[in-house]
C-alpha cells in the first residue's frame, strides 16, 4: 500500500473534487462513484490538508435516496465568503505539484550559484555544486534542469564557442529599478512598492490571479489592503484550460475541446476556432466563444466543462471571423447566438411601472444593465424598455428581477411569453398570493 502524499502530479485529478466540494458541498463518498472509494478518501484528505480552515464536514439525511446511501453520510464542503477574504484560498491547490529530492536541491543550488548574474557552463555548475554544498549530482541531470528552467524563463542561455552558458533571468529588483536606482512617483513611492500594491489588487481581480499570488509569495508579502466583491473563486480551477485556449488564440489556431457536463458523463468533442472568453459577472459562468467551422456559427462552451484542449491547425480567416463576432455579440443578450425558434432576432418590449419620485434607481438599472436597449417615458410613472436580441430566452432571469413593477412583456416569441407568464403563476401559487 503506497504512503499518503500531500502533493500531486496531475492537477486535473483534483480539479473536479475541489470544484464539487466548493460549488455543491453536499455530495458524499457514494456520489463520487466514477473513481474508487480509496481515491475519494485520498483526495478528501489532501483537500482537508490544503484548505483545512475552510473545510466543513456535515452528515447527510438518515436515508439519502438520491445518492443511494443508507444511514448518515459524511459530506465535505468548502465554505468561503469571498467578500471577507484577501486572497483566493483555492490558489493553494496550484501550489501542490510534486517534485523529487533532486528537483528541489537543484532549484536552490542553481539559483544560488547563478545569483550574481555571471553565466556558467554545465561543467562549471556541477563543480560549484560539489564545492559549495558537498553534493555530487549527475551533469546530465543538471543540464536537464537548466534547460527546463530556460523554458520556464528562470534561466537564459548564451554561447561561448561551442559551450552553452546559463545565467539567471531578470529579478524583481532589476525589473523595478533603472540604472539610476528607484523611480519615485509624486507620493515618493518606489516602483517596487507600487507594483506590489498592484499585485495585491490584481491577484484578486485579474484573470490568472494565481500568478500574482506566486509573485507575492516570492516577495514574501501578502495583501492586506484590497477586497473583492462579486468574485467567483472557483474560476481559478479552469485557468490551465484558459491558458491553452489563449495560446491557440494567439496563434490563430483551431482547437479540439473535450467537454463533460454534470448531467452527462460522456465526453463530448467540440471542434472550433477560439475567439474570446465570455464572462458573466453574475451567474458565475465563463465560456469560450468559438467559431464552429462545420456549421459556420458561433458557439459558447462552458469553461468548467472543458476537460482537455488540443491545439489544431491555423485558421486562415481568423481576423475576419473575429471582426464578425465583435459585430454580432451586441445582439446576444448572453452567450447564445441563435434563438430556439431559429429566427434571426427577437423583439421585446418591457413596460414597467416606476415611481418617478422615489424609484429613479430602477431607471438607472435599465440604463446600465439593459445593454443599450431603448428606454422611453410613455406616461405617468410608466416606461418602456425595448430591445432586439438573438435569444430572448436568455433575458428571462433579468426580466424576473423587475417582478413587482412589470406592467407588460410583449415579445415576438409566443413560447417565451407563455413560459414567462406560467412561471409567474407558479410563483403566485408557491407563495399563496391571492
Amino acid at each position: 500500500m503506497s504512503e499518503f502524499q500531500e502533493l500531486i502530479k496531475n492537477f486535473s485529478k483534483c480539479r473536479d473534487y475541489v470544484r464539487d466540494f466548493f460549488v455543491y458541498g453536499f455530495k458524499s463518498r457514494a456520489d463520487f462513484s466514477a473513481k474508487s472509494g480509496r481515491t475519494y478518501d485520498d483526495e478528501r484528505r489532501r483537500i482537508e490538508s490544503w484548505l483545512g480552515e475552510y473545510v466543513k464536514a456535515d452528515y447527510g439525511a438518515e436515508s439519502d435516496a438520491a445518492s443511494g446511501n443508507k444511514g448518515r453520510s459524511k459530506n465535505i464542503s468548502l465554505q468561503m465568503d469571498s467578500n471577507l477574504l484577501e486572497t483566493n484560498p483555492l490558489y493553494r491547490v496550484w501550489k501542490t505539484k510534486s517534485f523529487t529530492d533532486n528537483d528541489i536541491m537543484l532549484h536552490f543550488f542553481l539559483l544560488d550559484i547563478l545569483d550574481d548574474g555571471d553565466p556558467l557552463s554545465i561543467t562549471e555548475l556541477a563543480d560549484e555544486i560539489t564545492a559549495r554544498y558537498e553534493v555530487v549530482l549527475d551533469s546530465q541531470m543538471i543540464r536537464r534542469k537548466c534547460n527546463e528552467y530556460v523554458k520556464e524563463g528562470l534561466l537564459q542561455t548564451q554561447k561561448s564557442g561551442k559551450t552553452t552558458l546559463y545565467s539567471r533571468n531578470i529579478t524583481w529588483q532589476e525589473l523595478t529599478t533603472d540604472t539610476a536606482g528607484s523611480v519615485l512617483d509624486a507620493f515618493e513611492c518606489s516602483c517596487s512598492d507600487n507594483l506590489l500594491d498592484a499585485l495585491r489588487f490584481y491577484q484578486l481581480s485579474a484573470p490568472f490571479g494565481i500568478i500574482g499570488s506566486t509573485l507575492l509569495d516570492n516577495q514574501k508579502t501578502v495583501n492586506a489592503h484590497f477586497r473583492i466583491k462579486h468574485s467567483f473563486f472557483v474560476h481559478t480551477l479552469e485557468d490551465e484550460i484558459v491558458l491553452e485556449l489563449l495560446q491557440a488564440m494567439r496563434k490563430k489556431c483551431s482547437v479540439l475541446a473535450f467537454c463533460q457536463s454534470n448531467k452527462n458523463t460522456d465526453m463530448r468533442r467540440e471542434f472550433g476556432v477560439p475567439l474570446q472568453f465570455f464572462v458573466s459577472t453574475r451567474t458565475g459562468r465563463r465560456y469560450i466563444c468559438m467559431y464552429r467551422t462545420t456549421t459556420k456559427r458561433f458557439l459558447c462552451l462552458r469553461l468548467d466543462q472543458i476537460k482537455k484542449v488540443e491545439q489544431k491547425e491555423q485558421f486562415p480567416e481568423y481576423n475576419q471571423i473575429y471582426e464578425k463576432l465583435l459585430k454580432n455579440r451586441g445582439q446576444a443578450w448572453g452567450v447564445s447566438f441563435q434563438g430556439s425558434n431559429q429566427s434571426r432576432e427577437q423583439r421585446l418590449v418591457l413596460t414597467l411601472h416606476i415611481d418617478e419620485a422615489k424609484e429613479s434607481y430602477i431607471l438607472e438599472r435599465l440604463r446600465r444593465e439593459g445593454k443599450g436597449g431603448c428606454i422611453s417615458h410613455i406616461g405617468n410613472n410608466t416606461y418602456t424598455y425595448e430591445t432586439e436580441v438573438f435569444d430572448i430566452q436568455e433575458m428571462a432571469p433579468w426580466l424576473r428581477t423587475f417582478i413587482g413593477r412589470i406592467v407588460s412583456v410583449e415579445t415576438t416569441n409566443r413560447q417565451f411569453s407563455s413560459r414567462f407568464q406560467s412561471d409567474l403563476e407558479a410563483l403566485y401559487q408557491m407563495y399563496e398570493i391571492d
Partner: protein
Amino acid sequence: MTLFSEINNCYYQIVYDLITHTSPLTREDIANTINTLGYEESILYLLPKLIEDSDTSWNLFTMEDTVYQPKVHAALTIPLSELQKSWLKALLLDSRIRLFLSEEQLHLLEGHLKECEPLFYPQDFYYYDAFTDGDSFEHPAYRENFRILLSAIKKQQYVNLSFQSHHNHRIHHWFLPCKLEYSIKNNRFRLLALEVRKHSRYRFFTINLSRITEIIPLEQYAKYTPDINRYIKRGYHKEPVTLLIRNERNALERTMLQFANYEKNTTRIGENLYQCEIYYNKSNETELLIEVLSFGPMVKVIGNAGFLKQLRERLKRQKEMEGNFID
C-alpha cells in the same frame, strides 16, 4: 509555460523563506515556519528532509551546535518566470494600472518587459453582463483620491472625508480607511472605513470612491489595525436565507454556481430536492432578493421571515399589475 509547476510549490516557498533567513535557525524555528506557511500535514514530510542527516535529506543546511545554518546565501532572489513576466505585461495594459503606477514607472516596466508578450489582452475577456456605469479610473481626481486612501490604509492614518451619499446628502466626517473593495460586476471601488465616533467607538461605512469629493489626511494614526471583518459581520443577518431548490431546468447547478460567492450550506433533503442556506450582509439584501427572483419558480424561499415578506410583497404588487402579456 504551465501553471501547475513545482517552482510555485508551497514547499519550495517554505524552503525559500527558511534559507533566506539572516540568522541561524533552531529546530523550533523551522517547525514554526512549516506550520505557518505549509499545509496541515507538511511538517511530517518536510522536517526530516530539512534537518535530518541522511541520504534522502536535501543538504540545504549545516548543523552547528543546536542551530541550522543555510548553505545558500541569504540574499538569494528568485528570477521572474516567463509566465510571471507575461502576466505583469498584461497588467500594464489594464485601465486601472495607472491608479498604482506613475507614467515614469509604467515606462520603466514597459522597457524591461519589451521582449515579452502579454499573457492576455483586455479584449480577450468580454464581461457581457457587467454594469456600464463603472468608475472613471482615468480621472486625475479619482486617481489622486485612490492613492491618498491607499496610503492612509497602509499607515493606519485618519482622514477627514467628504462625500455625496446615495440620497444626495453631503457627508463630512473623520474616518479610518481600512480596505479598498473592488466590485467586478459594478466595475467600481468602494472604501471600507470606520467612522470615528465618541469614546473611541467606530461605525462601519462603505463609500463609493466616485462619490468622494474631498480627502484631507490628518496627522493622527490608529495604534492598531481594527478587525474590519468584525464590523462587517455585525451587518450580517442573523438568520440565513433558506432556499428549497427543485432540480429542474438545471436549477441546482445554476443556483450553486451563482451563489458560490456567498458562504452557503447545502443539503439534499429528498429526491431532486435540496435545501440551501445563504449567509448574507443586510446591505446586500436587495441584491440577493433580485438574484433569487431571477430563478423564478425553480427556487422557493422558506426563510428568513423578513426576506420572505419582501419577496411576497413584490409578488403581490406584480399580481395587481398582471394580465397584460401580449404576444
